[in-house]
């Protein structure tokens, strides 16, 4: 197994991320700080999706909804002058978890194409809910009046502070994922992906485990959403649009599904690719779309899979 190569890539990536604020400051290119921050937040989102999709085999096409719930929680709290991050963030995590309980309980009754469609539809419902919330900006979204306050601990209105907060949040999420997938719970989750009938036959009621994973993933995405609201200083329904859910799936796959740090590499690669392509042409998706199709048809195993022979289970 190419585990060593994988680890060195990941270490390299994190070292790179760690020094970006320095580089951005020296070269006076705050744009890169912004881009890297966005990369890391979406990495957390992709990591959370990877838990259920990569390790659980559950293709959720509505994961952006939980990012949206997290972001809206922060935005709506701020709108009502509740700015303490100590309240906002846990609330964002709890609420997205609650949504995941309900949505998961509905969609996990089904499998396959049904599951994909239902997660997609429920997420789109959240999008339309966002659009119809006129009080909170409706279609246009809502500027975040004030970033979450962590007084007297840290001040994330400072962009560098926010950057490192996100950096450590990502490291923590990665560590959390690692513990989770290798734990007893993680083994059950992977067993159910591999062979659900067998799991039932040896005595695992898989539904409960899958729902739990779904909720954990939802909460993690909600956390990413809380970060995203602070990053963009803005919330809008677009965060929950189904194409955002599609982006998350692509990130997970680009990095190699079911590999631990794959989603991080995938998210970085995705945003970098978007940046590069949109620099080449305004119509960058004209290139990206076919690229996606070709990648599906011909390259399997994702970017990290490129460097290791780790087998990937599909479908």
């Amino acid at each position, binding site marked *: 197994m190419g585990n060593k190569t994988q680890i060195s890539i990941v270490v390299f990536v994190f070292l790179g991320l760690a020094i970006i604020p320095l580089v951005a400051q020296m070269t006076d290119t705050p744009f890169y700080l912004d881009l890297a921050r966005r990369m890391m937040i979406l990495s957390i989102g992709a990591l959370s999706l990877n838990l259920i999709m990569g390790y659980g085999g559950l293709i959720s096409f509505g994961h952006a909804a939980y990012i949206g719930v997290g972001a809206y929680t922060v935005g709506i709290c701020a709108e009502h002058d509740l700015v303490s991050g100590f309240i906002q963030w846990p609330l964002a995590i709890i609420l997205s978890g609650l949504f995941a309980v309900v949505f998961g309980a509905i969609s996990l009754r089904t499998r396959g*194409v049904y599951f994909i469609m*239902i997660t997609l539809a429920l997420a789109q419902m959240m999008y339309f809910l966002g659009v*119809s919330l*006129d009080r909170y900006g409706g279609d246009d979204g809502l500027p975040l009046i004030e970033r979450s306050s962590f007084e007297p601990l840290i001040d994330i209105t400072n962009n560098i502070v926010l950057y490192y907060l996100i950096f450590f949040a990502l490291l923590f999420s990665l560590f959390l994922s690692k513990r989770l997938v290798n734990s007893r719970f993680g083994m059950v989750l992977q067993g159910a992906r591999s062979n659900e009938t067998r799991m039932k036959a040896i005595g695992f009621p898989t539904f409960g485990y899958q729902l739990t994973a779904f909720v954990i993933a939802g909460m993690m995405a909600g956390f990413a959403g809380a970060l995203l609201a602070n990053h963009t200083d803005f919330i809008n329904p677009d965060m929950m649009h189904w194409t955002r859910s599609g982006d998350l*799936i*692509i990130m997970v796959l680009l990095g190699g599904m079911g590999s631990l740090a794959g989603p991080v590499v995938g998210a970085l690669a995705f945003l970098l690719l978007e940046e590069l392509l949109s620099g080449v042409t305004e119509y960058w998706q*004209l290139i*990206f779309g076919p*690229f996606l199709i070709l990648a599906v*048809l011909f390259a399997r195993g994702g970017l990290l899979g490129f460097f290791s022979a780790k087998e990937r289970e599909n479908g």
Partner: protein
Amino acid sequence: MIDATLLFEQLFNGLQFGLLLFLLAAGLTLVFGIMDMMNLAHGSLYMLGAYVAAQVTLWTGSFVLGVFLSLPVILFLGIVLEAGVLRPLYARGHLDQVLATFGMILFFNEFVRLVWGPDGIEVPLPEFLQGNVSLFGIPLPNYRLVVIGMGLLVALLIYLLVTKTRTGMLIRAGASNREMVEALGVDINRVFTLVFGLGAALAALAGALAGPILAVTIGMGEHILIQVLVVIVIGGIGSIRGAFVGAMLIGIIDIFGRSFLDTFFKFFLPVNAAETAAPAVASMLIYILMAGVLFFRPQGLFPAKTG
């Protein structure tokens, strides 16, 4: 109070929207059912159908010509896509299918933006389709009547095709038990190309007809696709009958929700709260319905799969 005229008018609109959904759902539910294939790009065919029809209408001045030209164009495109991109994916997992068809959406959306610009096209209605017919003193727009007529006609044709012909028998058998059909020595791939092409043409018809009512814009395909997915989930994957019933339900409930929910809410909520809540709930209504149906019948109302 809700007055009877408005109620009837909206019922009429719901019916028309439902039939539009049916045109899209009929083809797609068979694609899902027969090949166990996840195809997100169906909405793109609908969008392209609308754009082609609109463009031809603008060139020739004939809306009818636009509609009838967009069908073969999209049919051809559908067959090319099926043979070129989708066929290698049948044996793959759903994830690969999702991804590849997602890539198709990105491509087609951008393609449309490149060719027709970001703003969308207005499709003018020909003279003879403008105006209203009066039924019991209620004015019904001619064009919507035509859409309803076309929708019902197509529904009837599909019904006849599926129930009365040999091909239809194969399609039905394929949706309920694919292995069985293959074991009988039928080339299921050819059945599928046929179904896919037919589905593409129906999507184009829906798009072309929708042009003058809804806006011809870039996002139109995805917007309606999700509603179509809800229809399919409610009706049961692979079931034409389910698609029809689901489409009618969703069409009417969606329109009613948007028109009457605030009136309804005002019965027991303060006016202010009702006016805030109604649009939010209305936009969620069909999804709540879907969740409800799934709770009682996870395989939809008319499950086609038998094993």
